[in-house]
């Protein structure tokens, strides 16, 4: 599993991410971006491409293994 947040202050709605990883990112209306805050590992490759392609680097994804950083007692 890969966790995602988008800094929507930075996001300029260029939709590159939605083009590269449509399962995770989608435009909502003309300009607003909706994304799935947690994607499956299978999306990892596409997600990395989408994050890299964002012209304003608004896409924030896990930089460390999520399970290694897991916090005791959660869920």
């Amino acid at each position, binding site marked *: 599993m890969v966790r995602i947040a988008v800094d929507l202050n930075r996001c*300029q709605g260029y939709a590159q991410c939605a083009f590269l990883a449509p399962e995770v990112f989608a435009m909502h209306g003309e300009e607003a971006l909706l994304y799935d805050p947690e994607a499956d590992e299978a999306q990892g490759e596409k997600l990395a491409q989408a994050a890299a392609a964002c012209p304003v680097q608004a896409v*924030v994804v896990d930089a460390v293994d999520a399970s290694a950083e897991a916090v005791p*007692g959660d869920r």
Partner: protein
Amino acid sequence: MIGDGSLERFRREGRIVVVGASLAGLRAAETLRDKGFAGSLTMIGDEPHEPYDRPPLSKQVLLGKAAAERTALPRLRSVDATWRLGVPAAGLDMAARRVRLADGDEVPYDRLLIATGVRAHPWPREAEAQLDGVFVLRTRDDSAALARRLEAGPKRVLVIGAGFTGSEIASACRERGLAVTVAERGAAPLVGALGGVVGAVAAEMQREHGVDLRCGVMVTALEGDASGRVRAAQLSDGSTVETDVVIVSLGATRNTEWLAGSGLGAGPRGIACDAGCRAFDIRGIVTDDIYAAGDVARCPHPLFGYQFLSLEHWGNAVSQARIAAHNMISESTDRIPHMEVPAFWSSQFGVNIKSVGVPSLGTEILISQGSLKDHRFLGVYGYQGRVIGAVAFDHARWLPFYQELIETTAPFPPSFPTVDRRSDGQRPIDADFPDPSVPTHGPTVTLGGYSPADRRMTFTPAH
């Protein structure tokens, strides 16, 4: 610290405690490690969950497009911390440098970061607030419970308060085809944050999407049925709304009660700190070992006459966290001030709303691009002859330009020719903010006085 190597020792083996394990707390912890802090790090959080992101809770989650349980924040790096989750901090001993937990444990620190944020204002009448079907929305658990209830298809949802969160909830409900009534004490939705000119557009958007919007009214009472489920709401205009889900969206309260009596300059308006995020004590003297960041902090901003601003914005929590973390482990001459231009976003009724600066400080507004009628425009706010804020409805790409005007304290009305011919405004008009003494749903930016401890009026110093 003096140049005797003590800072080096602190960076190597000191103890940092972070209270509040959410956006600001996590990003601060990551920054501390990034900048080489190698000592011990303890994260204290009253929620049982690891840090998660809140903006999706009123958007993706309520639309049924993401699960509330799957909103944990991405980790930018490993933080190697001791996590104390599910237990609130209950007290602070500044002299002994210890945080007391509700379970009786005490956690000693050399430096402390407070990032306890805010919580939703509950419905003021306790018995009514307990009725089944009455919600607030601040936490993951709130959002999960509300999403489940919306999934079950209520007959009508009542949203009390049309600030950003309330409006986003109404939008999600309409998109799911649910009947929605919104009751707002002010003259229009978003009026506290963006003023009446823009608020009128927000009202139009709600009505066009089928929201039963009632402005200038207050909900006076909630009624339950025999089994304790909410059934109806009474409004101040004498009308009754039959409803089975009520969402109380009346703004937020700062989580500072646990600091009462500690001597820190903390109160209902937040924790007063300097531009470097160091907290003031109640005497107005800055501490050097206690920092604050995020929604709970109240910082003087150089761009706004050093007025103390409390900002309930995601971007502010991230940038203050980084600055506080940097300053906590730096020599006094290497410290940096927090001076990022405030910014936030919201999306509702298919429109992307973004803002920079502090619109609520403005007295006038100029629609410099687009048109109010189309719900696509850019509004610039002016205050005493300078540009102080801007808001974009589906016009976000232009905002960086306006941000620069704010940063350079450009004159208002702006001197550039308005190129967009469809533009409504060649001339500024009154931005029409409500009288601040008349409460609305609670704006997301609060302006404080110049004094670090507004509570002084009620404070009696010890001898």
